[in-house]
């Protein structure tokens, strides 16, 4: 009898679960296939490694925010594959004689996803909000103002002429995306309420912790020049785009191998061989930016330049890179990766990756290092960060420094790095910026703390330069000096490994996948 009661309970429980299951609504999208060969339409399943905190491009400098948002929202000016500014929603730009007025004629006939035509007012409203929110804008475009000259012309006034102004407008992170005026005005401190732009894909749905669904924007109005980087002709070639959040990298791998996903992003470095040896996959790993060792210059041991130079004389960058990035790294002293053709520089290379233990011991002695404990903070959330930290620890310990590894989750490490009393060293990767001056460590408010007077003076001069040639010369000087002053130590260039099914064609990468002009054959 009683056993039967339990049976009944089991049935009730099963019904309960069935009910819960039913409350989970979700749309079924059928894969529409077209004629054979290079098909249009269909859907693309892309596994990305993290859910962005928001896809409002003005709000956050987190790179995944931009990687997703750039498919929906477009800026006036963007960058090509060489990180050079090129027009997007602006037809072109013109700079006045005194270098203080920028005129942007807009492309006419561009429509937002809500059907409204893009006009100068939308640009002005968006740019004003962006100026308020973006750190980059506040340094490179301090005091800038925007106004509408007529329906399709926008003027930007800057206080001081600078070659960096246009780079800031084209910046890839926390980018100056143009949204309709009403959307911008309705935005709160936590971001815009709707994601509406002019991009080749429109926003459909954000299923929390599962995916972001974008769909082809039928009325998209492309630029009339060949596609290059984030600029040029864009076209959504698939009807539906699913950006699936798959945090675990082995799940991203298994999902790609079983054709659950068409594209997978940010694989572990030790998966590279397995991916490359698979005949059904294409693997792309363009260089992404510098892996660097950060010093806490606010206080303590590493506010002394001799201590930093001692560390630089100890480190064998090749070994650190190999331990953390497998076989995919590039030893290069340039702060700007080779891809940034306007800024690549070999200045200061003679101080890069030159381990010299005698020199290091001398410098340590001069700095008065007396076996004090050095806290190297790190996180296992990204294995390359942890692996680089253990390699650095080993090398420093061999040279007689007392290094302790403090391991936290990533959010904690970032929080700690902004507390000057909590750490001495931290190794982490950075994305390439449109100009190397935008790298975090040149900002004295960043975790690494203040620079010296000479660096600050050079930066000031650099910001005031009005031609690319002048700017490049000063940049060479700043980089050469930085290899003496060592605000950080660049270890190597690192990549993000992306793999896609052989059925996927046209995929390009620029810090994350570019999913317009990408097709999938069925």
């Amino acid at each position, binding site marked *: 009898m009683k056993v039967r009661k339990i049976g009944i309970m089991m049935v009730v429980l099963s019904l309960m679960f069935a009910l819960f299951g039913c409350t*989970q609504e979700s749309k079924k999208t059928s894969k529409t296939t077209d004629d054979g060969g290079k098909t249009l339409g269909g859907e693309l399943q892309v596994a990305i490694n993290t859910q962005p905190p928001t896809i409002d491009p003005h709000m956050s400098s987190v790179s995944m925010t931009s990687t997703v948002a750039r498919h929906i929202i477009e800026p006036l000016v963007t960058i090509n594959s060489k990180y050079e500014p090129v027009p997007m929603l602006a037809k072109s730009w013109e700079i006045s004689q005194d270098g203080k007025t920028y005129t942007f004629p807009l492309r006419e006939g561009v429509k937002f996803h809500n059907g409204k035509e893009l006009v100068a007012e939308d640009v002005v409203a968006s740019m004003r909000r962006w100026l308020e929110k973006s*750190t980059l804008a506040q340094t490179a475009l301090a005091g800038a103002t925007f106004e509408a000259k007529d329906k399709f012309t926008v003027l930007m006034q800057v206080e001081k002429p600078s070659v960096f102004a246009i780079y800031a407008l084209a910046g890839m992170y926390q980018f100056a995306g143009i949204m309709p005026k009403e959307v911008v005005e309705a935005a709160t401190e936590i971001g815009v309420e709707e994601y509406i732009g002019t991009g080749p894909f429109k926003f459909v749905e954000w299923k929390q912790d599962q995916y972001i669904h974008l769909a082809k924007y039928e009325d998209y109005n492309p630029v009339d020049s060949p596609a290059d980087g984030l600029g040029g002709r864009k076209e959504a070639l698939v009807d539906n785009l699913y950006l699936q959040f798959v945090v675990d990298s082995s799940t991203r791998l298994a999902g790609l191998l079983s054709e659950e996903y068409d594209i997978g992003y940010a694989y572990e470095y030790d998966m590279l061989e397995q991916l490359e040896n698979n005949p059904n996959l294409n693997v792309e790993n363009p260089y992404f930016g510098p892996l660097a060792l950060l010093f806490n210059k606010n206080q303590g041991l590493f506010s002394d330049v001799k201590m930093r130079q001692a560390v630089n004389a100890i480190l064998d960058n090749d070994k650190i890179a190999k331990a953390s990035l497998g076989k995919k790294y590039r030893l290069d002293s340039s702060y700007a990766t080779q891809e940034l053709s306007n800024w690549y520089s070999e200045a200061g290379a003679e101080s890069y990756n030159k381990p010299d233990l005698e020199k290091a011991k001398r410098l340590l002695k001069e700095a008065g290092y007396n076996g004090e404990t050095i806290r190297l903070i790190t996180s296992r959330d990204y294995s390359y960060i942890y692996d680089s930290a253990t390699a650095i620890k080993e090398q420093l310990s061999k040279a007689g420094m007392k290094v302790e590894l403090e391991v936290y989750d990533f959010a904690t490490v970032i929080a700690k790095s902004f507390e000057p009393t909590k750490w001495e060293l931290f190794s982490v990767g950075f994305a390439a910026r449109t100009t190397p001056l935008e790298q975090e460590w040149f900002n004295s408010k*960043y975790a690494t703390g203040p620079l010296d007077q000479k660096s600050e003076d050079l930066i000031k001069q650099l910001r005031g330069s009005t031609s690319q040639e002048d700017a490049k010369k000063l940049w060479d000087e700043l980089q050469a000096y930085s290899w003496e002053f060592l605000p950080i130590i660049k270890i190597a260039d690192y990549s993000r490994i992306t793999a896609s099914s052989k059925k996927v064609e046209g995929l390009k990468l620029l810090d994350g996948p570019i999913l317009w002009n990408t097709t999938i054959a069925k």
Partner: protein
Amino acid sequence: MKIYVLKRVLSLVPILFIVSIMIFMIIHVTPGDPATVMLGDTATTEQVEALRNELGLNIPIYQQYINWITGILHGDLGYSFFMRQSVTMAIISHLGPTVSLAIMAQIMAIIIGIPVGIIAANRKGSLTDQSIMGLSLLGISIPSFLLALLLILLFGVKLQWLPVAGYKALSEGMWVHLKYLILPIIALGSMQVALIARMTRNSMLEVLNMDYIKTARSKGIKERNIVYKHALRNAFLPILTIVGQSFAVLVAGAAVVETVFNIPGIGQLIINSIERRDFAVIQGIVLFVALVYVLINLVVDLLYGVIDPRVRLNHK
């Protein structure tokens, strides 16, 4: 009996209160700030401060706690700025997969674990018994994430019979729903199968050696009747305890399995919320799970009474 139930329910209040204080303290002592996570580490100080104000993080900590508790008493668990929805909605929308997973894993554990345990007890010392016990030892020892990865490799990648990741709701069809859950259920449930099988075997062995069973045997009652009618019911109390406890373990274990199989359940929600320092959601889930845990224990206690009248009498 009614008084007993009432007492038990009332005793939940202090437990949940203590849990609420502890979780609130742990979260706010942990470094990391939702504003910085959302804005990125190069955000301006003004922007961070503005967002912190918006999130209510700039008021004194005790005041934040009082606000939170007051909200809960009004049935409001708070609001998640990352998810742009109320914590209650966030929990409900992530509950389906976890409940599906936990219940099916439990069903699998009971359907396989109990009969297998009975068989082993019946044939104590035989090859069957030894192999069952050997397998169950393996089941208890193997970590669920390892089993999950092995299953993915075999059934997902090599044979391509089942999807390796993701989740489809029941509304898309029973088979679609199950297809995505089979591997996670096995990964999550096998440890419970093993535990229940072992517990059933031990419990049955103890009962089968009792005098009243011997008496029954001597009266010539069929062996099947002895085992299922007389022995099993008496052996059931410890099994039920294990089943109840294992349900809580399943919810905890779901966090690992949900991560590996990318299932958007409560386990994944809490891990993601911790990573993004979404305080309201973390607090809400921990409180919710504590409540479920306590309620399951209560139900198990009440079920003792259903199965064993002596338990009921004791509480009168």
